[in-house]
């Protein structure tokens, strides 16, 4: 099955949202003894699925972080999480802008304005 560009962007927005949830949870637990951080990835899965269309399904996967834990068993690094939060937001904004651009094209093609 071929998925249009809007479907791909929609999937990417789901992935970024899942990443944002993981970051929020990691930051909330940055001082919880024994807590293992969560990492969510979807980019490589999406790239694989787009590489050979129709053969694979892209998936959002979450896995435990492999970073070395501190003495209290917690492996969350606050600085990394804040950077990830910032990146997720910019990615989200980029994707929504791409979606809007796509919708403007459709609008223009159907007789509306390109603005």
């Amino acid at each position: 099955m071929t998925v249009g560009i809007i479907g791909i962007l929609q999937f990417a927005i789901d992935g970024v949202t899942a990443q944002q949830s993981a970051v929020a949870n990691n930051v909330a637990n940055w001082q919880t003894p024994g807590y293992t951080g969560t990492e969510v990835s979807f980019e490589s899965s999406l790239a694989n699925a787009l590489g050979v269309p129709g053969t694979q399904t892209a998936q959002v996967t979450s896995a435990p972080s492999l970073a070395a834990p501190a003495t209290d068993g917690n492996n969350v690094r606050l600085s990394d999480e804040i950077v990830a939060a910032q990146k997720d937001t910019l990615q989200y904004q980029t994707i929504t802008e791409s979606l809007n651009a796509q919708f403007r094209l459709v609008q223009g093609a159907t007789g509306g304005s390109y603005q």
Partner: protein
Amino acid sequence: MSLFGPIDVSGTGVDAMQTWIDTSAGNIANANDAVPVGTPAYAAETPVFTPAGGSVPGQPGEGVATSVVLGSSAGVLAYDPSSPLANAQGEVVMPDVSMSNQLVGLIEAQMGYQADTTAIARAVAAYNSGLTIGS
């Protein structure tokens, strides 16, 4: 995960850090509460953080759950003969509160609070751009 779930998750983090700041403030305020020998001293409060919803590593969680445990009320003996509470040997019992621990905890709580509110601000910025889809 509910709509705007990450904001709720960060909210549990803000709540946890606020509890930490509150317990530190209480402990510091009571650090000099002398009592007569043989009576229980002020017991320091310590926040305990656990993953909310019994999170499994690698799976999306629901934030952090916070509870407060009381430390020992045994206190430490101090020599202060000028105190009206002192016994014949001039001793009183002071709370077992480590000022350096409390102040380090306060800074950590502040860092965590700022990180949680940053995560909320980033999520809100993303949702705001999401609301422009199709406009």
